[in-house]
């Protein structure tokens, strides 16, 4: 681990890198092919693996069209400021710049946002900039001229204005309002209510209460935002890293004032997204410049630019109170959270809506109230970050349940098992899932390690001096797909005349491996070996809409569409020879054979006509998971399927230093069906690493620490051994029973670590992350024995 100590990775959690390095020196067989019908469930090698390790993969900054201009953005240096430009023409002339762009140059609407109803972010601020780092202008020109510019000399006069930096300031009556119509700077409220929580808490034999705050968290994608745009007649083409090509297309069309059909988005390989690449970054600037100049234009964000201007995880201020009976049965939860959503809406409404649905955790809670608000401040917009607010929420809820279990006098894991949601019990939105509720199985899978680890910790603590070990557990559930909103995916699969299969799949693989997973599913549904597939991925001009890569929906939603498309193509082939459903198909070069009982049909593909897509047979399928709108009390069916999981954290606290070392994480996840176990482990280990960062070190202060020296993400030395336990409690809706794992993986880690901290030394922090100075201060405040003065 020490050898890669200086290498930062945000996706893998490092452990898989080490095993890959060790494996590379051994002779072994990688699964790049599997017999027809056996791809699902196997550890297939990523289809893009070779391109990645040979460096052939094209990321946002990798391609530069010849003659491309370079673009740079001028950003506001204050949290809030009015501004006036000087002589821009003169500046351009003096510095040999091709053009300067400002709000005046936006031909369409100078406003965008991931949720059209709330769109409020300008490409360039018009008269007042609302956060430090907001774009006010851009310059484009020859690379040498633009690179040389000292942008602090750009002709703009700033008038710094008093800024709202905290939720409290923003909510103060009379505070300046950031956006018209959003009274008291409240962007949106979320609410889920069930039963009578006040009465239930009053009557509960045992209650516990907790308050906790979290800070901004930076995505720190290793690849900063980058790309290029060019105009081809009346079409604008944008090649950039993105998680949501189809949303990008709509927004760019609105900004340029042109039809969506005139916008082509070509996603590159993505070096980490985690939610931040759902929002536009370089795209509108590139599109405006290329459209206006009719020249290719490129841009690459610097690390600082990426950190000051792109979305963050919402800081949360949470309060919760829960009640249980002496028997340990959960009776009520009252939960409130305010999220600092920054200057623009981004995904604030989604966070506010998703958290109240999830704040019960994966447990049966009969009386429930969860209220949330997203509040605007003059800070960088908070948006989507792996879990849409649920990881913050779990930090409050899972610590609270630990407190409750302690007061009841129950083992903390058994308390969770006792209260686990089941197939038959209703969720807090009144939904009875009926199947695939694997949470109890996850907790039970942790039981052996839980018992052993607890005993080991007690033994260790009996003789250790300054070191204390602790063990913590936390559970999670997470709905796959959009909350009570349609989110369809469409897949197209075509049979070519040479016998190969073309899969048009628009699901952007942001490194998690969805392209491989989707192909595995389609291959098995069609009954064809995976190495016959040619992938056409995520170019809005050649792939149908697969929605965005977020909300843990690609395996579940796009995977199901791929399954349906594969099945449909199979039916088309059978129909050609009027064979029954049970017939077996084998694919050869240039022909397809259908075996039915003792009959053999041979289809010569060259004899078949070519359809409008260029194939001899084409099938297309759309899947949209069934959901139902939530009523005013948040009752309804927000998601068709939930993923479940639980983590067990073993830590060692140095009570004199206040440092926490994570010794081991055991992660049990109900994934429905593990389509590709290696990729799932990758998601889990990467999620655990981000969870460790969130628990122990990551906190972004807007206006400070805008680089990866000051903002710390875990290094190899911070990641312990991680054991993944895969539970398969299938959902009949997902492809082969599969559910999502992308966001699920990060949620339980931080609360499990914080519960382990309490187990070790009996403290709970009001402010997360648990940096050593905070831990040490709390140790001193609580006068923990043996630690008061080393």
């Amino acid at each position: 681990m020490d050898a890669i100590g200086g290498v930062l990775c945000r996706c893998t959690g490092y452990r898989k890198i080490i095993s890959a390095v060790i494996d590379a020196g051994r002779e072994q067989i990688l699964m790049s092919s599997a017999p027809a019908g056996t791809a699902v469930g196997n550890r297939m090698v990523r289809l893009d693996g070779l391109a990645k390790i040979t460096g052939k993969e094209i990321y946002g900054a990798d391609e530069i069209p010849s003659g491309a201009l370079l673009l740079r953005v001028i950003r506001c240096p204050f949290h809030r400021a009015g501004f006036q430009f000087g002589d821009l023409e003169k500046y351009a002339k003096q510095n040999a710049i091709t053009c300067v762009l400002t709000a005046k140059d936006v031909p369409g609407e100078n406003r965008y946002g991931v949720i059209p109803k709330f769109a409020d972010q300008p490409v360039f601020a018009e008269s007042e900039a609302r956060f430090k780092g907001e774009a006010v202008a851009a310059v484009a020109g020859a690379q040498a001229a633009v690179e040389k510019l000292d942008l602090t000399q750009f002709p703009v006069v700033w008038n710094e204005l008093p800024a709202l930096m905290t939720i409290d300031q923003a909510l103060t009556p009379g505070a300046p309002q950031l956006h018209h119509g959003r009274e008291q700077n409240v962007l949106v409220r979320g609410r889920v209510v069930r039963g009578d929580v006040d009465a239930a808490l009053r009557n509960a034999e045992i209650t516990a209460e907790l308050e906790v705050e979290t800070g901004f968290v930076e995505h720190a994608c290793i690849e900063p935002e980058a790309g290029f745009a060019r105009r081809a007649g009346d079409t604008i083409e944008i090649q950039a890293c993105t998680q949501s090509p189809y949303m990008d297309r709509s927004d760019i069309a609105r900004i340029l004032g042109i039809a969506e059909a005139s916008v082509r988005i070509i996603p590159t390989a993505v070096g980490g997204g985690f939610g931040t690449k759902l929002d536009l970054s370089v795209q509108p600037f590139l599109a405006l410049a290329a459209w206006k100049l009719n020249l290719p234009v490129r841009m690459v964000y610097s690390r600082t630019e990426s950190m000051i201007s792109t979305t963050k995880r919402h800081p949360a201020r949470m309060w919760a109170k829960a009640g249980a009976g002496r028997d340990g049965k959960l009776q009520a939860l009252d939960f409130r959270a305010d999220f600092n959503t920054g200057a623009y809406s981004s995904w604030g409404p989604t966070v506010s809506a998703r958290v109240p649905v999830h704040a019960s955790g994966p447990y049966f809670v009969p009386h429930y109230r969860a209220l949330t608000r997203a509040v605007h401040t003059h800070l960088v917009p908070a948006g989507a970050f792996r879990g849409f607010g649920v990881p913050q929420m779990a930090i409050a809820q899972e610590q609270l349940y630990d407190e409750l279990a302690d007061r009841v006098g129950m083992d903390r894991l058994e308390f969770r098992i006792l209260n686990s949601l089941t197939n038959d019990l209703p969720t807090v939105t009144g939904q009875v899932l009926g199947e695939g509720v694997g949470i109890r199985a996850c907790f039970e899978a942790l039981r052996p390690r839980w018992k052993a680890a607890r005993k080991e910790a007690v033994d260790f603590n009996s003789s250790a001096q300054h070191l204390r070990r602790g063990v913590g557990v936390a559970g999670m559930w997470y709905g796959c797909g959009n909350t009570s909103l349609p989110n369809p995916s469409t897949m197209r699969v075509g049979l070519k005349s040479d016998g190969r299969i073309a899969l048009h799949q628009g699901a952007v693989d942001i490194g998690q491996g969805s392209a491989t997973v989707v192909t595995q599913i389609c291959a098995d549904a069609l009954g064809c070996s995976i190495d016959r597939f040619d992938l056409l991925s995520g170019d809005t001009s050649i792939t149908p809409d697969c929605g965005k890569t977020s909300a843990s929906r690609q395996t579940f939603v796009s995977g199901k569409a791929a399954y349906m498309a594969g099945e449909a193509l199979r039916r088309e082939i059978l129909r050609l020879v009027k064979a029954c459903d049970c017939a077996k198909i084998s694919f050869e070069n240039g022909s397809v054979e259908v075996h039915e009982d003792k009959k053999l049909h041979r289809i010569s593909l060259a004899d078949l006509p070519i359809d409008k897509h260029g194939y001899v047979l084409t099938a297309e399928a759309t899947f949209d998971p069934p959901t139902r709108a939530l009523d005013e009390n948040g009752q309804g069916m927000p998601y068709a399927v939930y993923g479940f999981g639980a983590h067990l954290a073993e830590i060692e606290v140095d009570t004199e230093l206040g440092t926490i070392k994570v010794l081991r994480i055991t992660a049990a996840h109900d994934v429905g069906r593990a389509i590709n176990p290696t990729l799932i482990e990758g998601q889990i280990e990467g999620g655990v690493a981000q969870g460790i960062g969130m628990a122990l070190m990551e906190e972004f202060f807007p206006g400070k620490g805008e680089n990866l020296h000051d903002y710390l993400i875990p290094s190899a030395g911070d990641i312990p051994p991680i054991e993944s336990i895969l539970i398969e409690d299938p959902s009949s809706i997902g492809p082969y029973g599969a559910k999502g794992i992308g966001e699920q993986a990060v949620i339980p880690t931080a609360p499990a670590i914080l519960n382990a901290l309490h187990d070790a030394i009996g403290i709970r922090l009001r402010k997360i992350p648990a940096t050593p100075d905070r831990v040490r201060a709390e140790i001193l405040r609580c006068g923990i024995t043996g630690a008061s003065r080393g």
Partner: protein
Amino acid sequence: MSLADFKLLRPRTLDEAISLLAPQAGEGARATRVIAGGTDLIPSMRQKLFEPEYVLDIRQIAELKGIRETEQGTEIGALTTLSCIERSSVLKQHYPVLVEAAKTVASPVIRNMATLGGNICLDTRCLWYNQSLTWRKSCGFCIKKDGDLCHVAAGGKKCWAAFSGDTPAALLCLEAEIELAGPQGTRRLPLNDFYTGEGDSYRRLQLNELLTRIILPKATADLSGTYRKLRIRGSIDYPLAGVAITLKCLNGHIESGRIALTAVNPAPVLVKKASEVLQGKRLDEELAELVGDLAAKTAKPLTTSALTPEYRREMIRVFTKRALLALAN
């Protein structure tokens, strides 16, 4: 952040280097910078902390590399990489505290490039200084570069940027001397006299001088020693507090002991009274506490770095006490 244009000078001998450096030393931000490993200089140049017209690349000067045992002690060429220090059997055997400190610097990849001379000359650091030009301008330029503000000690006139090298603390405990070469020849001085204690003009190195050699005296060979470093992550980071200790014990009594701190002051500093207090005593919990308090009093951490100053000072105390007790056993 692109690197601004500069002219690269690549001398092959020390004399050539000095002859190139002397007439083209330049002034202020434009002053010629010497590049050895480059692991600190290049990021700083990208942030426009230095905008030299000339960069003097000394990596081809063979005489500045390597570890030699001499009659007086052990000489280390300023260009010796930290990886070489880590692997040196001579140093491991006779000066373990230096090896231990070198091992904690950044990461293996960086230690393959970074040099001991560079670690000694390392620029002082501050959250308000090691930032991009745009960022510094938006907050207001500070005393250390381009301005007269101090964001750390408001209204103050002194720069408190923290010295954040790991190895100098160990070298101070070893009573290391350094050799500087300039147009008038070479001069030698105790490492302790190299640092000024000011965050901005933190070292006594003329613009036309080069650090050439580090000399570890025979007298401090074979001392037991240790280095403790505070950082949040398991690797990469600069120290937020660092303590180096060397001890010589005879029959359970301390003959001599030295303690040096880093990352909590604008210079690496020796804890002055510690040697006196330790001498002749038997090391026990009580003495360790006392010396820990002395060390904490010597530390003057401010908000130049992550984590609270109070905490970092407290960690100096804990580390000192722990390191002493560990060495006593």
